[in-house]
C-alpha cells in the first residue's frame, strides 16, 4: 500500500526532481558536523589550524615584502615614462661597466637633439651644511637639480606650486620631515635656509614643501635646490664627457619616444661627444627605465647596495611554499584520517547524498577551516612585521584594504586546493564495503604512497630552504668579516670632499687629527671605502706596448699603509728617501717625461699580464710622456661591494694637495664612539664653521653586507617556519598512524618482535621520506646557491658541510617529533594492543 502522505512526484515510477547539488542547509549541516568533530579531535584541529596559520602568516608577510619591493616607484605619476640616462664604459682591461651616473655635459645637447624628451633633470646629491639662520648647521643631503625636476618627478606637494617651486636660483623645495627638522613645523614656506656647499653659504627661500617621499621610491630627496652657476662652472662633469657626478633623468610623452631616443643614443654620442681623452668604442649611453632601476642597478656601478630580484623572488617563493607545506599537512592529515569518517560518508550516501554533495560538503569544511587559520595567520603576520621590518630593513605594513579581498581569495583557493583531494577520497567510499568492514578503511596503498610523496616534497622544500639559508647566512657572515685587503676596524674617515677650502688645509686637518690622543696613524687619499669616486687612465707597458689596460689611480698621502693596513706581497712600499717615490703634485702632467714610483695591486699584475707579482717589480709603465716604475705590489683592497670585482689599480704617493680627498684615521686602542667625539672636537678647533663629516669605516661598509645579512635573517625565519610546519605534519601523521597500528604491533609482539624491533620498524618507516627528501633538496639547493654565489666576486666555497648539517638536523628533529608516539606504541602490551580497535 503506497504511503498516502508521499507527494505524487515521489512515486517510484515518476521522474525524480531532486538536484544533485548541495543546498545551503546541507552545507551548514556538514560544516556543523565538521566543527564539532574538530572540537572533539583537538590535536587534529590544532595541528591544522596552527600549521595553516603559520603557513598563511609566512605567506602574508613575504607577499607584503614582495609587493613592497616590486612596487618601487609605481606610485609616481608617469613612472613608466621616466628613464635614466646611463653610461656604458668599455675600457681596456676592465670589461664592460654600466654606470648609473652620467656626464652632465650631455644634458643640453640631448634636449636639443631629441624633441621627444618632455622634461629632464640632472640630480647631484651632496652632503651640505644646512642651517635655518640660527645655531649650528646640520649636515644634510641636498639634491641639486634642474628647474624641471618636478616636471619629471611629480612629487605630491603639501604647500606650494610645483611649477614654480624651483623657478629661481634662490628657491628650495623641502620635504615635510626636513621642514620639521629645520623649523619644527611643516609650515615652512617663505622661511629662509642657509646651504653651505664648497665653502660658500647661500641663502635660499623655501618655495614649497613636498610630502615625504615614501621608502619605496628610487629618488628620495630631502632638499631640492637648482644647480648654482658656480657649481656648474667648477664641476668637471658639466663640461667633461669623461666625468660624471650624478644621474640624469628624462620624462617622455610616450613609451615609443623613449625607445626612439634610446636607439638614437649611439649616434648621438658619436656626433656630440667631444672629449679627446675618451677613445672611440670606450663610451656609450643607454636609457634605463625608472621602473627597472630598483632591481636592475644591483650590478651597475653606483647601485651595488640595491635589491637583488632573485632574493626577493626567492622570498616570494618561500612564502608560497610555506603555504603549500601547510596545505600538504592538511591533505595528509585529512586523507590519513579519512577512514575515521568513512562510516559517516557511507551513512550519508545511504540517506541519499550524492557524490557532488559530499564533495561540496568536504570542500566547504576545508574552506571554513581556513577562516580561523587566516585570522591566526594575519594576526601572526601583524605581530611579526615589526621584527621582519627590522630584520630586512623594510617599511612594510599591512594594508587591510589590499589584504582582505586577497585573503578571502586565498581562503577560497587554498580551502578548495587543500580540500579537493580529501573530498574526492572521502566521497568515493562505497557504503556497502564500509558498512560491512569491521574496521575503518585506511585510504589504501595509493593514499599511503601519496602521503609519503607529499611528505618527501614538504621536507625536500624545508631542507633545501634550510641549506640555502645556511649558505646565505654564511656568505653574509663572510662578507662582514671578510678580508678586504685592509683593516676596516678602528678606522675613521673624515671627508674633505665637500669643501675646497678644507682641501686646501689638508695638512692642517691631518696634523690636528694626528694630535688627537689615541690616534695611531693618519693618512689622506682620494679613494675611500664605499665611494664611487674614482679616476682611471690607460697605462702601457714599455716592454710590451700592446698591453695597455685601464688602471684606477689612487693618490695617497704618507702613512697610508699604516692607517689602512694594506699588505705588501712583493717589492717595497713608498719611501721618502727615494726621490721619485713622492710625486710633487697629485696630478701628473703626462706631457712631461717625468718618472714616478708606483705600487700596484694584484689585479693590476693580471691586467698588465705579468706572470706574478715579483715579475712586475722594476717594470715601467707609461701614460703618454710620463713614466711610472713599479716598486711594489699590494694585496687587492676592496673598497666596494663584494659583488663588484676589484679594479686593477695603482697607488701614487704625494704630499701635495689631493682633490676630493678623505682623511683616514687609525686608532686601535680607543672605543669608536669616543674616538669619533675626539675627532669632531679636533675638527672644530680648525673649522668651527664647517660641518664635521666623519664615519667609522666598518659602519660605512656595513651597507654592502647588511642587505644580505638582513635577508639571511628573514630566510632563517622562513626556513624555521617551514621546518616547524613539516614537523607538525609529521607529528600528526605519526600520531595517527601509530594509533592505527596498535593492533598490528600487538600481533607482531605476540609473534616474538621485541620493543626495539618494533621501534626500529616504525622509526624507519617514518624517517624514510625525510631521508628521501634529501635527494630532492641537495641538488636544488646546490644549483640555487651556486647561481647566487656566482653574483659575488668575493664569496665562500659551497661546502658540503651545510648540506650534511641540515640533513642531520632535519632527521634528528623528525626523530624527536615522532619518537614519543612510536615509543608509546612500541611499548604497548600485546594483550592490550590486540584488544585495540
Amino acid at each position, binding site marked *: 500500500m503506497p504511503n498516502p502522505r508521499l507527494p505524487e512526484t515521489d512515486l517510484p515510477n515518476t521522474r525524480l526532481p531532486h538536484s544533485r547539488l548541495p543546498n545551503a542547509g546541507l552545507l551548514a549541516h556538514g560544516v556543523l558536523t565538521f566543527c564539532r568533530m574538530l572540537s572533539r579531535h583537538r590535536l587534529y584541529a590544532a595541528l591544522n589550524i596552527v600549521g595553516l596559520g603559520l603557513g598563511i602568516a609566512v605567506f602574508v608577510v613575504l607577499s607584503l615584502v614582495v609587493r613592497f619591493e616590486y612596487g618601487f616607484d609605481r606610485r609616481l605619476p608617469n613612472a613608466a615614462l621616466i628613464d635614466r640616462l646611463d653610461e656604458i664604459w668599455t675600457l681596456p682591461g676592465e670589461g664592460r661597466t654600466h654606470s648609473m651616473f652620467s656626464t652632465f655635459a650631455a644634458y643640453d645637447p640631448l634636449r636639443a637633439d631629441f624633441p621627444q624628451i618632455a622634461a629632464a633633470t640632472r640630480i647631484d646629491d651632496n652632503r651640505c651644511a644646512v642651517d635655518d639662520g640660527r645655531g649650528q648647521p646640520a649636515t644634510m643631503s641636498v639634491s641639486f637639480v634642474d628647474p624641471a625636476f618636478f616636471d619629471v618627478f611629480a612629487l605630491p606637494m603639501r604647500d606650494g606650486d610645483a611649477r614654480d617651486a624651483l623657478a629661481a636660483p634662490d628657491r628650495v623645495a623641502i620635504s615635510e620631515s626636513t621642514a620639521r627638522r629645520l623649523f619644527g613645523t611643516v609650515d615652512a614656506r617663505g622661511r629662509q635656509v642657509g646651504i653651505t656647499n664648497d665653502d660658500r653659504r647661500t641663502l635660499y627661500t623655501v618655495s614649497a614643501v613636498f610630502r615625504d617621499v615614501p621608502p619605496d621610491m628610487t629618488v628620495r630627496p630631502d632638499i631640492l635646490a637648482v644647480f648654482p652657476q658656480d657649481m656648474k662652472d667648477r664641476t668637471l662633469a658639466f663640461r667633461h664627457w669623461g666625468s660624471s657626478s650624478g644621474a640624469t633623468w628624462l620624462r617622455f610623452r610616450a613609451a615609443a619616444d623613449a625607445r626612439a631616443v634610446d636607439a638614437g643614443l649611439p649616434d648621438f654620442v658619436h656626433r656630440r661627444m667631444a672629449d679627446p681623452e675618451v677613445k672611440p668604442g670606450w663610451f656609450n649611453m643607454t636609457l634605463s627605465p625608472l621602473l627597472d632601476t630598483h632591481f636592475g642597478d644591483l650590478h651597475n656601478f653606483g647601485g651595488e647596495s640595491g635589491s637583488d630580484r632573485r632574493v626577493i623572488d626567492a622570498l616570494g617563493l618561500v612564502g608560497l611554499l610555506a603555504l603549500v607545506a601547510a596545505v600538504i599537512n592538511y591533505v595528509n592529515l585529512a586523507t590519513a584520517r579519512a577512514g575515521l569518517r568513512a562510516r559517516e560518508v557511507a551513512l550519508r550516501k*545511504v*540517506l*541519499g547524498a*550524492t*557524490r557532488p554533495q559530499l564533495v561540496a560538503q568536504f570542500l566547504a569544511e576545508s574552506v571554513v577551516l581556513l577562516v580561523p587559520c587566516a585570522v591566526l595567520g594575519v594576526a601572526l603576520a601583524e605581530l611579526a612585521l615589526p621584527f621582519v621590518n627590522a630584520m630586512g630593513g623594510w617599511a612594510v605594513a599591512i594594508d587591510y584594504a589590499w589584504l582582505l579581498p586577497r585573503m578571502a581569495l586565498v581562503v577560497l583557493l587554498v580551502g578548495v586546493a587543500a580540500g579537493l583531494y580529501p573530498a574526492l577520497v572521502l566521497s568515493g567510499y562505497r557504503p556497502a564495503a564500509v558498512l*560491512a568492514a569491521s574496521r575503518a578503511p585506511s585510504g589504501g596503498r595509493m593514499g599511503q604512497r601519496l602521503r609519503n610523496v607529499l611528505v618527501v616534497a614538504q621536507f625536500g622544500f624545508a631542507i633545501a630552504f634550510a641549506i640555502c639559508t645556511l649558505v646565505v647566512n654564511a656568505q653574509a657572515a663572510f662578507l662582514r668579516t671578510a678580508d678586504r685587503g685592509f683593516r676596516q676596524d678602528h678606522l675613521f674617515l673624515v671627508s674633505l670632499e665637500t669643501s675646497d677650502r678644507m682641501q686646501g688645509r689638508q695638512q692642517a686637518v691631518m696634523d690636528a687629527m694626528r694630535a688627537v690622543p689615541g690616534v695611531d696613524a693618519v693618512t689622506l687619499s682620494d679613494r675611500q671605502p664605499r665611494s664611487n669616486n674614482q679616476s682611471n687612465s690607460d697605462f702601457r707597458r714599455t716592454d710590451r706596448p700592446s698591453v695597455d689596460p685601464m688602471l684606477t689611480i689612487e693618490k695617497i698621502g704618507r702613512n697610508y699603509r699604516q692607517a689602512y693596513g694594506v699588505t705588501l706581497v712583493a717589492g717595497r712600499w713608498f719611501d721618502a728617501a727615494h726621490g721619485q717615490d713622492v710625486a710633487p703634485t697629485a696630478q701628473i702632467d703626462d706631457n712631461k717625461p717625468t718618472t714616478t714610483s708606483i705600487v700596484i695591486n694584484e689585479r693590476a699584475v693580471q691586467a698588465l699580464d705579468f706572470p706574478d707579482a715579483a715579475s712586475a717589480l722594476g717594470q715601467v709603465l707609461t701614460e703618454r710622456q710620463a713614466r711610472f716604475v713599479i716598486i711594489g705590489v699590494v694585496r687587492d683592497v676592496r673598497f666596494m661591494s663584494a659583488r663588484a670585482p676589484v679594479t686593477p689599480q695603482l697607488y701614487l704617493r704625494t704630499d701635495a694637495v689631493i682633490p676630493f680627498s678623505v682623511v683616514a684615521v687609525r686608532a686601535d686602542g680607543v672605543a669608536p664612539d669616543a674616538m669619533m667625539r675626539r675627532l669632531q672636537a679636533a675638527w672644530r678647533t680648525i673649522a668651527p664653521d664647517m660641518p664635521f663629516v666623519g664615519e667609522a669605516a666598518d659602519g660605512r661598509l656595513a651597507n654592502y653586507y647588511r642587505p644580505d645579512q638582513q635577508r639571511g635573517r628573514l630566510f632563517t625565519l622562513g626556513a624555521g617556519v617551514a621546518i616547524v610546519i613539516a614537523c607538525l605534519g609529521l607529528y600528526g601523521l605519526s600520531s595517527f598512524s601509530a594509533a592505527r597500528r596498535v593492533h598490528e604491533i600487538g600481533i607482531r609482539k605476540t609473534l616474538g618482535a621485541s620493543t626495539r624491533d618494533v621501534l626500529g620498524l616504525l622509526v624507519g618507516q617514518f624517517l624514510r621520506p625525510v631521508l628521501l627528501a634529501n635527494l630532492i633538496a641537495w641538488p636544488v639547493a646546490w644549483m640555487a646557491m651556486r647561481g647566487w654565489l656566482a653574483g659575488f666576486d668575493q664569496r665562500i666555497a659551497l661546502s658540503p658541510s651545510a648540506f650534511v648539517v641540515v640533513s642531520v638536523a632535519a632527521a634528528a628533529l623528525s626523530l624527536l617529533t615522532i619518537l614519543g608516539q612510536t615509543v608509546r606504541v612500541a611499548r604497548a602490551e600485546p594483550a592490550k594492543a590486540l584488544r585495540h580497535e
Partner: protein
Amino acid sequence: MLIQLSDIQRLYRSDEVETTALHDIHLSIDRGEFVAIMGPSGCGKSTLLNILATIDRPSGGVYRFGDRDLGRLPESELAIFRRTHLGYIFQSFNLIDELTIEENVELALIYRKLPRAERRIRVAAAMDRVGIGHRARHYPSQLSGGQQQRAAIARAIVGEPDLILADEPTGNLDTENGAQVMDILQTLNDEGATIVMVTHSPSHADLAKRRVDMLDGQIVISVRNAI
C-alpha cells in the same frame, strides 16, 4: 508489487579468487509486507539487503522497484532514489557522533531539501513516535544502545519512505530493548510501512509477516508466518 528481484547475482572478484555472494535470487515483496531474512553468517543476507538499498549493485539480474528498473539508474539517480524512497536501520546504529539526536534524524530530510520548518515538525513527530523526543538535544554517546537504535529508527522513518530496510536492528541490543525495537517496527508495518529486516533471531523473525531463509547465497525457504 513494490519490489521484484529476478535472477539476481552478486560476485566478488579479487585478483585470484571469485566469490559468489548471491545467485539465482528471485524475490517479490508487496507493499505493506514485513519480510524477515534469516540465515547463517556469510549466507548473503546483508548483501541482499545492500542490493535492496541500492548501495551495492548486482552482478546480474533485474531489480525493479515499482515499475522502475533500478539497475539502469546511474549512481546519482540512485542517491536521489534512496533519499526519497528508503529508510535504513543499521545493527550498529551509525549515528553521527558530532550531531545531536535531532540533527541526526534531520539529516535524512536535509538531502530532500525540505524547508527547515517542515523538517522540524517531521523530526519532532518521528522522535515522539519512537519515544525519543525527550533526548532530542543529546549526543549519541549520551544515550543507551536501545535509545540510539530508536533514534536510528526515527531517522529511517522521518522521510516516510516506501521501504524500510533493517540490518539486524536488534543485534546490538539486550532482550528488553530488542523487544521495544520490534514493537516499533511492527507498529510501523501496521501503519502501512513495508519492511525488510535481516535478523539472526528466530523469535524476531516470527514477528514478521514473511520469513525468507537463505543459505550459501540462495533463498531456500520463503514462508508466510501465521499471525
